[in-house]
């Protein structure tokens, strides 16, 4: 048997073995697309079919209005972007120090990060809520503000961001900066002009992961946000279902699809780079 036929046979068996998992992973996407494009009478018909008899284009404007999708989209983007910026802004210097400098208590800081990484916000959610309620902000407190959610997301992503950035930074050769010092560059100048440009890919990958985790977060948003004008996308979609007597499932699925698809596409495209970094903290 030639190497080629062997590989073909292997391909067949591998895909056959993976088939159940592949079906289960793609099943929700098929359901979102199928239900999201159906008119409501077909959604509620029995037996349901995968293909709609006609595509209900009016689901888009109906859902957009019912979910106040534009506002929720803005909130999600705003909260995720600012939270990512916050986490990256404090994590980059810390990661630089971790990878380059001799610090007293570095081991301790590393352990602290690890412990905070393990803490899911849901275990502290009661305390987080009370903290937000005790911080004055504008006319009231941080409860029911985007700022409150941003601060919590930022803080809970620090551990991961520092960890990931530091692992990348150690792979950037020191010689680059040292050469710049010899050429008369100050330490800060070397960091700004030599180190940071080289670190941009690492920072972008970390930022993307942080953004996605903020985008997908549910528990903190559920606890902190009340005002419909401030809800994030995930929360909005869940609210279309929770506590409703009759649920417009085609709108829910369409909203869920629009909320997940962009993130899923970015993730799939960058998967190779992300996966490498995501496990650094776990396995290293």
């Amino acid at each position, binding site marked *: 048997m030639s190497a080629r036929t062997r*590989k073909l046979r*292997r*391909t067949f068996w*591998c*895909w056959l*073995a993976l088939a159940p*998992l592949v079906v*289960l*992973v*793609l*099943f*929700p996407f098929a*359901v979102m697309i*199928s239900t999201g494009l159906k008119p409501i009478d077909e*959604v509620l*018909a*029995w*037996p349901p079919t*995968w293909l709609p008899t006609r595509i209900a284009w009016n689901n888009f404007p109906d859902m957009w209005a019912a979910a106040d999708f534009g506002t929720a989209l803005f909130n999600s983007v705003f909260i995720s972007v600012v939270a990512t910026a916050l986490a990256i802004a*404090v994590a980059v*210097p*810390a990661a630089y*120090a*971790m990878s380059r400098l001799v*610090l007293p208590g570095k081991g301790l800081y590393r352990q602290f990060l690890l*412990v905070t990484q*393990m*803490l*899911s916000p*849901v*275990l*502290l*959610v*009661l*305390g*987080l*809520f*009370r*903290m937000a309620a005790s911080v004055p902000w504008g006319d009231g407190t941080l409860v029911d503000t985007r700022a409150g959610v941003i*601060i919590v997301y*930022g*803080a809970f992503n620090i551990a991961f961001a520092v960890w990931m950035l530091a692992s990348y930074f150690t792979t950037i050769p020191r010689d680059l900066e040292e050469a710049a010092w010899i050429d008369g560059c100050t330490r800060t100048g070397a960091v700004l002009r030599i180190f940071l440009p080289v670190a941009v890919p690492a920072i972008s990958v970390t930022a993307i992961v942080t953004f*996605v985790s903020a985008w*997908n977060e*549910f*528990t903190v948003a559920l606890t902190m946000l009340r005002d419909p004008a401030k809800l994030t996308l995930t929360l909005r979609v869940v609210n279309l*279902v929770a506590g409703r007597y009759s649920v417009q*499932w085609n709108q829910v699925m369409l909203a*869920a699809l629009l*909320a*997940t698809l962009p*993130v*899923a596409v*970015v*993730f799939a495209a960058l*998967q190779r780079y992300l996966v490498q970094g*995501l*496990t650094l903290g*776990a*396995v290293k």
Partner: protein
Amino acid sequence: MLLVLPSLALAVAVIGYPFYEIVRLSVSNVSRFGQVRGYVGAANFARAFEDPNFVAALLRTLEWTVAVVGGTVLLSVLVALILRLDFHGRGLARTIVMLPWAISLSMAAIVWLWSFDGDHGMVNITLQRLGIISGNIQWMARPETAFPVEIGVGILVSIPFCVTILLGGLASIPGDIYEAASIDGATRMQAFRFMTLPLLRPFINIAIVLNVIYVFNSFPIIWVMTKGGPDNSTHILVTYLYEQAFGLGRPGLAAAVSLVMLAIVFVFTMIYIRMQSREQAA
């Protein structure tokens, strides 16, 4: 020092202060509106352990964690071994396997909730077409099916992370030991049992511990799909805690439950740290 300070300050403030609040609430008599009305010692803990729903949630958390982590690790070992092989379309297969990672848990839960809908869901019709079930099953309305469905969703969304760790482990095994073994006449099964599995062991252990921590804390799947119902039959500790804190207005009791959970997570984190340092020493 100045470089580390901002990150430390933010993390300590946003994690340290809530932690302090939870400790304080857990030993206080707290009104449903959050007013602290004096020290009560361990009364909140005692009340939690007297609540049959808490004890049931505790046991169910064990069931949930063991089932989800066990299922995830078992399947992930298989998937990682397959993804290690050289076959056509491997890149695509990897992307598909990793896809659930990109999706919000709450969105996955919503879509599965609808898919398992008793009267209009695609799961019922698909299983009937395949001849596996004969009539419609009200999956999420019955305790004996709702919880297993949630476990299944939990496994599905946990696989990507686990596979990634295991692929990292498999990549660290040098290929030439297999050649040496096959020259010595080892069968493939023997190679797996006596080489792959022992060499993968530390990575499997890490995957188990990390998954235990994540799954133990996992909130959105159960909250979105059943909110602990029907009839409190799917509560795990996190959902019980959330309901006590924000649904039933018992902050003191919820804080006590939080503290119990934090202690459990802390123990597992210590196990993980020890495993890691042993890895680095080896």
